[in-house]
């Protein structure tokens, strides 16, 4: 069971090898992986929309979609048909090239990220030795495409959304990258496969620095893919739909697709870096990976069902005044833990982190004026 998909692929390759030359076999090996990734990306996106609507519905004491198919399982298909048949409107003053390119290009980095995610034992499509760097490089190109969409629409709301998105993504990129540094210190490699293998004995989230890094990474990830409560670039109540205000039909669906695939890859990467990836007892490795990833996706939906949108200054404050210092302290704590080793290292890392967490909470406390007492005249 563990190697089910790997064996399936090998079987298919053997079948092709019977009648095809070697170069065709290696080409089809690549194509099978690429095809599986692409199909997976679309499939994940479709059913994440359904899961999100169901989960949030339940949190708000509603049932959620249940009309199309059993438990609404065909709802994403119905949505896709609706999206495809909708009119495609391009605003007259828009930059037609950018307006057309933005929704196409936003899906590309989202799909490319899937290449370095280890879905199970031997199930990384492309185990790069700079996998993590590749992830950060790819995910930050999304910023440019989003700004492209906002700029190309020639709409004030869209431009505002694009600018907000740039500000937000660049701010959160910094603590996000810094929160991964402790993992690199500990593993000594940027390859996602090596990082997972290094967690065979102990998931990183169970160490003090790992826990803090996990929380910082996940929060920054949520902000990176513009999800609630950090959905300022597409804040409905403020700027219509932000950067995708002027997109309709399938173009709009492509933005949505990229957003959900980004959310999936953030959850997958958090699971890979801190929750042991596909490591786990009894169950096959790919099932462990899916379980961990979907629990994290559930947490994202949970956030969305609970928290109101942050104000712009609150969001910036969280990144620069809280997460960034904490990520820096976290590197120190991880260094101490790894250098001293054993209980002494563990304890010192924990003390440093808890101390700085409390200190930062105190410094970041919002100003609440003292309650005035009114003395009424007799």
């Amino acid at each position: 069971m563990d190697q089910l998909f790997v064996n399936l692929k090998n079987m298919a390759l053997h079948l092709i090898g019977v009648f095809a030359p070697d170069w065709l076999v290696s080409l089809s090996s690549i194509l099978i992986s690429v095809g599986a990734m692409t199909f997976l990306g679309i499939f994940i996106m479709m059913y994440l929309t359904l899961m999100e609507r169901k989960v949030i519905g339940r949190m708000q004491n509603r049932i959620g979609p249940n009309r199309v198919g059993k438990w609404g399982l065909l709802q994403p298909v119905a949505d896709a048909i609706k999206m495809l048949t909708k009119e495609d409107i391009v605003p007259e003053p828009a930059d037609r090239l950018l307006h057309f390119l933005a929704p196409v290009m936003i899906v590309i980095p989202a799909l490319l990220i899937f290449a370095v995610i280890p879905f199970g034992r031997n199930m990384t499509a492309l185990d790069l030795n700079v996998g993590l760097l590749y992830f950060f490089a790819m995910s930050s190109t999304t910023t440019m495409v989003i700004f492209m969409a906002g700029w190309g629409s020639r709409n004030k709301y869209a431009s505002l959304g694009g600018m907000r998105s740039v500000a937000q993504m660049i701010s959160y990129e910094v603590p996000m990258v810094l929160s991964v540094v402790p993992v690199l210190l500990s593993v000594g490699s940027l390859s996602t496969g090596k990082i997972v293998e290094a967690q065979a004995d102990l998931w990183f989230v169970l160490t003090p620095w790992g826990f803090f890094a996990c929380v910082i990474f996940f929060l920054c990830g949520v902000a990176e893919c513009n999800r609630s409560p950090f959905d300022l670039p597409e804040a409905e109540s403020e700027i219509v739909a932000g950067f995708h205000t002027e997109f309709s039909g399938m173009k709009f669906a492509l933005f949505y697709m990229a957003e959900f695939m980004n959310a999936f890859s953030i959850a997958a990467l958090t699971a890979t870096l801190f929750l042991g990836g596909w490591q786990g007892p009894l169950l096959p490795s790919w099932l462990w990976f899916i379980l961990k990833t979907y629990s994290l996706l559930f947490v994202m939906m949970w956030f969305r069902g609970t928290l109101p949108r942050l104000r712009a200054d609150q969001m910036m404050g969280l990144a620069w005044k809280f997460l960034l210092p904490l990520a820096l302290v976290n590197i120190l704590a991880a260094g101490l833990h790894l250098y001293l080793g054993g209980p002494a290292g563990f304890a010192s890392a924990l003390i440093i982190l808890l101390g700085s967490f409390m200190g930062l909470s105190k410094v970041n406390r919002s100003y609440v004026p003292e309650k005035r007492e009114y003395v009424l005249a007799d």
Partner: protein
Amino acid sequence: MLFGMGILRGLGVTLKNFFASYYKKPEEGGLFTVEYPEKRLPVKERFRNFPFLVYDTTPENMRCVACDICAKECPPKCIYIVRDNDEAGRPLKKPAIFDIDFTVCMNCGICEEVCPFDAIYMDHEFEIADANRLDALLYNLPDLLKPNDYFQKIRPNDAAQVDARRLEAEEKKKAAVAAVKTQAAAKDIKPE
């Protein structure tokens, strides 16, 4: 107070609701959605939607006497009545045509209030949507006529009151007729 504690408390509330929606009953704070086409809430007795005509025993025995009061009182003028005539051309106490245009009717219930013959009452029917707005929603006499039993069924309290009132009136009428008869008889006997 540590950073994020309020957020954790909020997350607790939503998670509680999430799980409660799966096992709790509506009264205890679970899901209270009634999925309409399959399940439906009971209709209240005084719920009113579109009028219908009441008949006793058979459709020929309708209570309506084509007095035209409801048609005159109807604010959007959705009722159209033509009185029936017999072969000799004398007016009969029943309508030949009784049309109600449901596209115009605003469900005010004034026809019910003004009818002195207890003939027209508001119905509980509300699923009358139709693709054809001209013919399907113009209800004629046969569509409108419904038995007194139906009235008893949908509005038991109102129907009981109406029936009691009608019975009383009938007895009074009988008594009056009897009194007139005895008077007349007494007059006849008087020798003069």
